[in-house]
């Protein structure tokens, strides 16, 4: 082998390991290796050394094959959740996946608690179609409230959507907007206006909600309130017993109402009314209606799909519910079909067999910020397939999508998830990719979506199919 050829080979191989080999150079490398055994020996020696270097300094490989940011997120010493996971032999990876889900949770908890604001003891566990309103009394950035966040004391205004709060003692409160409420000391909510349903476990007995007209004390399990702008308060007892103390009285008019009864308090006093069901109070936005159990982070349910819209400020991962109970007629190639951490979405890794009946969801994210956006979604039923490649999405739009939704056509160049190794390095020179973790029980996915800042327009989408119990109409 001539020395010029040796030099050329060394240069090509060095460019290869530095990820700078052009297609023409790749062809040249192939030709050199084909014609000379010496070139092949040199190539193998050079790459054996490269492998040895990677083994000594594995950081670079880990940062591209695993999550480099994970290292910055402190993992809880003994996470409760992992203890509950069955430890079947083949699921080592699921442990890692669970750790990441927990890490995301920990990240959200830490990042969203305002450092000096006093905590109300309430945590936002779900937000569906939520729009927060600017706040008059405090400068609290309500718009950034994400599921999983601990809420501070103070005023909140919900322009639309439904939120679910959980208190330390287990009380769960759903509030439907438009609503104004204040979180006060001692796990106490003041509802200025809006609809609320409270479910109270035994430990939280005595939970208090006040309104402009009444103080309502729970004496057992579930009640609803509807407060109009003027303060008129309807109390509906769904299950158990509540005690009502009208504000207008002198304290002597305290009374109890029980299951299936309702009353209205206003300037005219107290009158019996037709009781409303939980559904009527919180319609139409209930998480379980969509087959969802829990949302954390920057995720929300959205019933429309606007691919042109570029929301300013808040960056959400939208969950768009699609058709339910669809029978899979021909096998479908899935990008993701088993638990694990995924940062590459090009290879179809599984096949969803025909005969499966599924519910479909489209997750949509319009990347605008440089910071990754994170979210965790727990589905009621196990996920059987996910598709994150543009051609797979397009091929399944008609089968699983809703006629009322406006799906992107093929003129959109970037649709689907961004695989690691997209040619545009992000900050610090790290490659940019989206990341999807599917939990061991296949019900929870954790997402980390990144904007590919080098690409104007385009969006990240992935279609999620869960096992359905419904039969399509």
């Amino acid at each position: 082998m001539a020395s010029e050829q040796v030099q050329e080979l060394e240069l090509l191989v060095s460019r290869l390991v530095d990820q700078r080999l052009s297609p023409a150079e790749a062809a040249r490398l192939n030709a050199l290796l084909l014609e000379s055994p010496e070139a092949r020996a040199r190539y193998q020696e050079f790459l054996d050394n490269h492998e040895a270097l990677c083994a000594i300094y594995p950081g670079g490989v880990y940062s591209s094959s695993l999550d480099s940011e994970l290292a910055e997120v402190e993992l809880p010493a003994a996470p409760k959740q992992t203890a509950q996971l069955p430890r079947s032999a083949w699921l080592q990876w699921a442990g890692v996946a669970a750790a990441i889900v927990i890490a995301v949770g920990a990240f959200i908890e830490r990042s969203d608690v305002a450092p000096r604001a006093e905590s109300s003891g309430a945590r936002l566990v779900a937000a569906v179609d939520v729009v927060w309103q600017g706040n008059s009394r405090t400068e609290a950035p309500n718009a950034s409230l994400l599921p999983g966040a601990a809420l501070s004391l103070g005023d909140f205004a919900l322009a639309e959507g439904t939120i679910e709060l959980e208190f330390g003692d287990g009380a769960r409160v759903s509030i439907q907007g438009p609503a104004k409420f204040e979180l006060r000391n001692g796990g106490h909510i003041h509802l200025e206006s809006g609809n609320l349903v409270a479910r109270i476990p035994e430990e939280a007995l005595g939970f208090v909600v006040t309104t402009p007209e009444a103080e309502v004390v729970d004496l057992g399990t579930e009640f609803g309130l509807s407060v109009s702008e003027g303060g008129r308060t309807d109390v509906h007892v769904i299950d158990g017993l509540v005690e009502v103390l009208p504000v207008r009285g002198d304290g002597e008019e305290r009374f109890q109402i029980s299951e299936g009864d309702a009353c209205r308090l206003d300037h005219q006093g107290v009158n019996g009314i037709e009781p409303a069901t939980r559904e009527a109070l919180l319609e139409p936005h209930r998480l379980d209606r969509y087959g969802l159990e829990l949302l954390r982070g920057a995720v929300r349910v959205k019933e429309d799909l606007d691919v042109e819209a570029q929301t300013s400020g808040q960056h959400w991962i939208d969950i768009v519910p699609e058709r339910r109970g669809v029978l899979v007629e021909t096998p479908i190639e899935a990008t993701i079909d088993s638990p694990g951490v995924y940062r590459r979405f090009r290879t179809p890794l599984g096949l969803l067999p025909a005969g499966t009946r599924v519910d479909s969801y489209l997750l949509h994210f319009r990347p605008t910020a440089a910071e990754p956006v994170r979210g965790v979604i727990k589905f009621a039923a196990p996920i059987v397939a996910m598709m994150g490649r543009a051609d797979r999405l397009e091929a399944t739009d008609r089968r699983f999508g809703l006629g009322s939704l406006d799906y992107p056509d093929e003129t959109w160049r970037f649709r689907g998830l961004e695989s690691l190794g997209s040619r545009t390095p992000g900050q610090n020179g790290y490659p940019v990719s989206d990341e999807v973790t599917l939990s061991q029980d296949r019900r929870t996915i954790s997402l980390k979506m990144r904007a590919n800042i080098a690409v104007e327009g385009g969006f990240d989408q992935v279609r999620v199919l869960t096992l359905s119990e419904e039969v399509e109409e």
Partner: protein
Amino acid sequence: MSEQNESYGAPEELVVQITTIQPRLYGFILKRLADHEQALEVLQNTNLVLCRKAGEFQKGSSFAAWAFTIAKFQVMAWRKSENRSRLVFTDEVHELLDREADEEVSDVDRRIPVLKRCLERLREQERSLIQRRYRDGETVQALAQSLGKTVDATGMRLLRIRKRLGDCIRARLGQEVEYGV
């Protein structure tokens, strides 16, 4: 590899094993595909198979040998499914480059302790550049930017350091690689 013949007990142990072997698997796959992105994609597929087939792993046998065998199959599967135009090597070259996994693994095993000594002998600046490239995973572009050099100049510096390391290893292994024609 050093953990050869170690038996695998708890699932956690296997996670550690899989995690530890990542750089070696990457290197092994890269050699066969000559493309970073494709190598990472096959590495992910290999990891999934390793997890899925953990039950089939024979306790007491070499984890590394098992993992590299699976990686080899995954490379072949990738070459079959991937668009020809994206593959760097033709089938012929791919076959010519093929080696027994065992031999290849022990060859790299031998190099690691020697390479450590060779790294110590580098000049501080050179070692730091190698560390940033490998340990910190910085791209050549990022390195060039922070050094105030062109990307090509930085690439050439890395090439020179790699050659020096290669010479050092060859000398210490005490065997001139035979380049028969």
